[in-house]
Structure formats: C-alpha cells, structure tokens
C-alpha cells in the first residue's frame, strides 16, 4: 500500500472509523494501529513480515535488558555488549538485505580487474519494505536507552507500534523514541485542529507527490535522462531541474502524507522538509532536506565519532566525509550514491573552510560582516548552494558513474535538436503550473511574503471551503490513476 494509492480510499476510511468509534483508550487504539501497520507492511512483502517481527523483538528485548543493566558514569561491559549486539544485529540485517549483492558484485569486479575469475555469488534479494527507515529508528531507540536519554519501552506491543507505525513505515520520517513513545502511552482524542492540520498536510503531500513529482518524472525527467544525447542543452538543464523537483515532490510529498495521516489518528510525526530550496548554504540545506535522516546521522554518527575517544575525535572534516558517505550508502547500494555522498561531504568541508576564512576576514575588518548581510552575498550563496545541490543530483539519478559523468558533460556542450518533451498545450500548462506551485510553495515562506500566505490561509471558512473543493476537482481531473512507487521507499 502507498499513502497516495487508490487502496487508501478503502483502507483509511475503514480504519479511521474503527479507530474513532471505538473507545478512546490505548488498549483499543494501539492494537488497532499495530494491526493496520502489519497489514500495511504485508501488503508490500508479506513473506518478509517475520523479518520485521524478529527485528522488533530483538531490539525490544535488548532495550529492556539495557534498562535493567546498572548504569554508571561510564558504560559497563554488560551495557556495551547489549548495545553492540543491537548494533551488530541491525547493521547485519540491513547489510545482508541491502548491501550483500553490492559488495559481492564490487568484489567480483575487482577480481576481474586483477585477472581473477569472479567467484562470489551475487544475491538479488527482495528488500523488506522500509528497512532503511525502521532500522535507523530502532537503532536510535536502543542508542538512546544505552546513553540513558530514554527509558526502555515496557510494552512489546507499544514498541512494535512505535517501530512499525504505518504512515512512516516505508519512507519516514525517521522517528525517535522521545517523539513517539510518549504519544503511544496516552489516548488520542479527535480535535478539529487535528482534522484540519491532517487534511492540510495530506493535501499538500498529495499535490507534491501525485501531481508534481509523478508528472515531472514521467513527462520531463525520465525521457531526458533516458536519452540525453538527442535533447538540446537547455532541455538537459531543465531535465535536471525537473528531477530536482521530482525528488523533492516525491519525498517531501510522502513525508507530508505521513504527517497528515498521522494527525488523522491523533499522532504528530516530525517535520521532514522545510523549504529546502531556500537554503543558502549546505549546512542550512541539511537542516531543511530530509531533516530526520540528517539529524540521525549527526546525532548518532557524527557526534559520537568526533567527540568520542576514537581516531576521529576532533577531526570534524573527516567526520563530515564519514557521515555523508554513510548517507550515500544509505540511499542505495551503488557507487553513484557513494559519489553523491562523497561530493556532499567535500562540499561541507569546503563550506566550513570558507566560513572560517570569512570569519577571520570579518574579525579583521567589520565591513565584511555588512557584505555578508547584503543581498548580493545572499543571492550568490543561494545560487552556489542550489547549483551544487542540483548538479550532485546527477549521480543520484543516473545508473552508473559513467552515465553521471556523461550527463554532466552534456550540460556544457551543444546538444541535439529535440527540445522539451512537452507535446501539447495541456502538458505545457501542467508544466508551468507545477513550476509555479513549487516556486510559490517556497517563495511564500520568505519573510516578506509569509504574511500574504498567512492571510490567504486565514480567509473565512466559506472561501477556504470553495477553494478546497476546486483543488479537489483539479486533482480529480489532472492526477492520473495509478501512481508510481515512491523513489524513497526503495532506499
């Protein structure tokens, strides 16, 4: 099942009805949501349901054992062992399903390059859906219990629901125990704000995913990335920008759908995207794009790595590289993702060196502070940040490193004679409308325009009702039946 799929038309109303007509007690609400989450998972890969169940059970037991183990200023060997077991178990599980084939194929390539026969069997395993998300979520839980930031969850049922809550199961947001566990321990009540907030988030998510992302991918990005040679240079650039819009719409859209559905059940999930195309630096970008993943990477890898006792202590730049290589590998078992991660790690290193250099100039001469606050600096910073981000999406989209290099080269050389793959007026209108939607979505967050957005959202209820009706009519007419899968659900 997917949150924007036709199946939700049947699944969601029945579930909501059962959820809200039943008693407002966690004894009713939590088991029902767990059952729904099991159904949701099984609807993707029913045979792999035991994997999720075992992994939940293992982390619940280890969490309880950690809670029972005596705490000290320094972790005791027993606590280290328990935490290490969880770490090894989760990483082995993730590694086996997601990376076994990749490493075997890479080693075989190496053997071939050395003149040896490729001897390792390359496994093509079906991934348990959302494994990258629920593994990180459970790891965060065990780590927090280990570090004493969180008490272990006493109820297996509650922990199972925490790890598998269906709106965020397949593509995040990656939740933490502190955010969700308290919500499971008290009954949820239906309020008008929840309904309105849920519907707004759901509608925004649907527009981003089902309209913007799917159309941009199908009509622009896919044709151009499939045959870049035949397209003009301008079309190749627009194809790349369309892909940026597609991946943003796909992932941010899914996150908003998850948040919206969560609210329908009285559960607040963390925000995952916050106007990323407004970012004027890479650190800012990573606090706006896939917020919950980056928060995880910095809290559970970067922090312990650069402040712990290891070789990496104080080596912050090396820490960036490690974090983003991990991020790249997390996104996919391909060298293109590794390159993407490496580029962003290096990008952060360059940013921080530039920042240190600029601050030293500011200390010497205060006029540089004024320059930094000026519009030209802000615009330049925005252009450089966004250009870097968009260009690094090339290896994210292309299947091989060679294809990535070729697409990058083609952006700067004369192209073929085919323009944009937009054949008729309706497609052109759709393209412009989606571009205006994505642009407007971001621009209205700017300080000067936020007031306008708030005024529009604060219009009287009858106006909002009519506008909502027209938006639904628009979607009914223009959003095609049969949506693609979420790009991020495959990570």
């Amino acid at each position: 099942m997917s949150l924007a799929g036709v199946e939700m038309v049947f699944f969601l109303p029945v579930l909501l009805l059962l959820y809200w007509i039943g008693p407002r007690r966690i004894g009713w609400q939590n088991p029902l949501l767990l059952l729904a989450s099991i159904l949701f998972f099984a609807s993707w890969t029913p045979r792999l349901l035991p994997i999720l169940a075992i992994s939940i059970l293992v982390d619940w037991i280890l969490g309880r054992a950690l809670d029972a183990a005596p705490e000290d200023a320094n972790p005791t060997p027993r606590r280290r062992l328990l935490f290490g077991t969880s770490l090894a178990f989760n990483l082995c599980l993730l590694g086996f399903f997601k990376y076994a084939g990749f490493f075997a194929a890479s080693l075989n390539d190496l053997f071939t390059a050395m003149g040896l026969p490729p001897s390792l069997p390359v496994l093509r395993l079906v991934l348990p859906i959302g494994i990258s998300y629920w593994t990180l979520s459970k790891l965060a839980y065990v780590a927090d219990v280990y570090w004493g930031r969180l008490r272990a969850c006493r109820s297996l049922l509650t922990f199972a629901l925490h790890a598998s809550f269906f709106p965020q199961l397949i593509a995040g947001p990656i939740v933490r125990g502190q955010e969700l566990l308290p919500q499971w321990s008290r009954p949820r009540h239906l309020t008008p704000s929840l309904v309105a907030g849920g519907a707004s988030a759901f509608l925004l998510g649907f527009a981003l995913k089902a309209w913007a992302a799917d159309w941009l991918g199908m009509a622009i990005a896919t044709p151009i990335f499939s045959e870049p040679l035949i397209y003009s240079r301008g079309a190749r650039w627009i194809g790349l920008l369309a892909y940026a819009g597609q991946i943003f719409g796909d992932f941010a859209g899914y996150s908003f759908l998850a948040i919206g559905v969560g609210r329908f059940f009285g559960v607040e999930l963390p925000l995952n995207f916050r106007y990323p195309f407004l970012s004027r630096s890479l650190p800012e970008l990573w606090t706006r794009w896939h917020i919950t993943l980056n928060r995880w990477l910095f809290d559970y890898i970067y922090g312990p790595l650069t402040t712990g006792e290891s070789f990496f202590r104080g080596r912050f730049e090396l820490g960036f590289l490690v974090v983003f290589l991990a991020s790249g590998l997390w996104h996919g078992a391909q060298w293109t993702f590794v390159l993407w991660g490496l580029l962003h790690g290096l990008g952060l290193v360059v940013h921080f060196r530039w920042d240190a250099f600029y601050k030293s100039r500011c200390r010497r001469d205060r006029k540089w502070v004024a320059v930094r606050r000026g519009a030209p600096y802000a615009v330049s910073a925005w252009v450089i940040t966004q250009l870097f981000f968009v260009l690094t999406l090339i290896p994210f989209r292309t299947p091989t490193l060679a294809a990535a290099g070729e697409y990058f080269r083609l952006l700067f050389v004369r192209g073929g004679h085919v323009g944009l793959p937009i054949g008729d007026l309706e497609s052109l209108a759709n393209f412009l409308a989606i571009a205006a939607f994505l642009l407007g979505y971001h621009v209205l967050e700017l300080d000067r325009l936020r007031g306008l957005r708030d005024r529009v959202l604060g219009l009287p209820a009858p106006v909002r009702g009519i506008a909502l009706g027209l938006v639904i009519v628009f979607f009914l007419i223009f959003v095609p039946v049969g949506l693609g899968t979420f790009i991020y659900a495959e990570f």
Partner: protein
Amino acid sequence: MSRHSWRSVLLVGALAATVVVACDLAVQRVVPIQHQSEVEDAIAELRRSDPTVLVLGSSHARTWEVVGEEVARRTNGATRILAVPVEFGKLRVYDWVLRHRILPLLDDLGPDGRPRRPSVSHVILVTEWWDSLDDGTPPANLPSRAWTSRDFLEDATKHGLVAYNRNWLTSRWLRLTRGSILAQDRGYGRVTKGLVRAIRGDDPESERQDTIFRVRKWQRMIEAGAEGVCAPEDMAALADMISILEDRDLDVTIVLYPRKPATITPRAEETTLATYAREVRRVAGPAGVPVHDWSTQNPLTDADFRDDFDHVTPEGNRLLTEWMLDGDLRWLVAPDAGDNVTADAKPALGGRS
C-alpha cells in the same frame, strides 16, 4: 498547527463537497458519463438468464449487444445472445474468463440435478490481432475487468499489493464512483477535451491535424504489431478455449473484428493482420471451427468508427449487425442456415476489400 473549531472544519468540508458535486454535475452537461457493460455485468446477467449464444471477446463484443436486440426481435426471443466484453483484449484473458467466470455457471446444476442454463449451444469468440500481442507486460485488464474479490485477495496474499493486482482496487473505486464524471475520467482527458471544445468551439483544422496524427500513430502501431503478434501463450489460450467448448458440445465461431479502414496500411494488412488470421485458422482448423475474418472485409467506413478509432458508432453497429445477419452469422436468425461460411467465401458476401 493553528486552532480550528468544529464549526469551521465542518463548514469547509461541506462547502468543498458541494463544490465538487456541483462541478461534477456541470461537467456532465458537457461530457456525459458513458456507462458500458463489463464482465461483471455480463456474469450477473448470465446468473439471471439462460442465453442460447454467448459472445466472448474484448470491448468489441459489445457490438453483440446491438446484434442481440435485433436477433431477439427477429426470432421472437428464441435466440438469446449474451455478450461478455473483456475491455482491452488478450486471448489469455478470455481463456481465464471462460474458465473462471463462465464455465462455473454453465456447469451449475439446479436442485433437480439438471443444468440451470441448458440453452447455451453456441459461443462466438470475437478477437483481433492485438489480442495475441505480447508486449512484455502482464494483461492488466484481468484484475481490473475480470477478477472477483476472492481472486484479488488470493493474489495480494501471495504477492503483496503490487501494480498488477492494484488494478482491481482501481476498478472497484471506479465502480463505486460510477455517477461522477470527474472520478470516471481521472486522467483520461475526456473532461479537458470536452471543456476546451465547449469553451472554444470546434476547430476543424486542429481536429484534422489531430486526426492525421492519430491515424499515423494507429498505422504504425498495427504495423509494429507484426513483431509480437501470435504470442505462443495467447495462441495456446485460443486452442484451450476451443478445446473446452468443443468438449462441452458447444459450437464455436471465431470472428476477427473490423478495423477502421484508415488505420490499415497495405503493409499492416500483409503482415500483422494476415499473420494473425492465418494463425487463428491454423489453431481453429483441426476442430472445424469457422473463422470469419472481418478485419478488412466489412461494410464499415471510417465514419462508422468513434473518435477512439477502435470502436464502432451506434449507426456502424446497426450496419454491421444487418450485414452479419445477412451473411456470416445468418444462422443466428435462421438456425437451419448452419455456420459453414468460411473466410474464403467472404468476397461473395459483398464485403469491402
């Protein structure tokens, strides 16, 4: 999240629903909903009735709804035709429908141990080249047009919810919203085209250009069909259907349905269409099943086809009905005539070549 009251939330919801319904009704004045029979309707009708002739095929089988009315009129109801249209074709899908949906009803016995539907004596299989084309994808119309909820659950339990079986859910949604043109048209473009036409009026030149473009597209598609036509799985399904029906002592007739003349190039006629007709005859021949190839030999002109270039207009259906009842299928109205006319005899019937 900002604070809302129940009053404002309900007001917004009610007004939004009102706008959607009002827009739907307004659009229906410009673009009416077209209700068409599906496998489910035909099976429901078969449960209720005892036809003498079953017609199984793609959407083209709907022509036999018109034929059925005319035949019933001429025979005073002695010959009763029931068409089972499986939208979007494929022989393997007809075979599935025959095995899983039709045969259980034909084999169904009443309390006295006798068949509930003893009158079925003849089955007409309506097909065309596309029904045997292997385009590398599983036929999505099977779940969407022919499955029952049980078939869906069995498949979903085995494979999870995938794009293929999700088609069943989509068709459920479309059936639930039969009264809404906005829901029915979701993504197919009839609404936008109808609205644009209503606002801008007819544009003969642009329509002419569009027609030329689409004719060429159809011509290329049928020519390209030579590559994958007569897929072994589909031809095996045809043989299977013939075998099943013959085993039950049911007479079988195969009709290759007419194509819009403009979409057929000489090359397509010589390759795709000829190959398919030859292969169908090869499969049907040993069982003595008559094959009537109407794909290019029929009384229809381009004007008798709808805008989709694939289906026949109501007038065209009436013309085709008269023609077939005077020719290849005259046994429907005069059972003594027998069904012994073969495709070789076609020119004598005055068909267009």
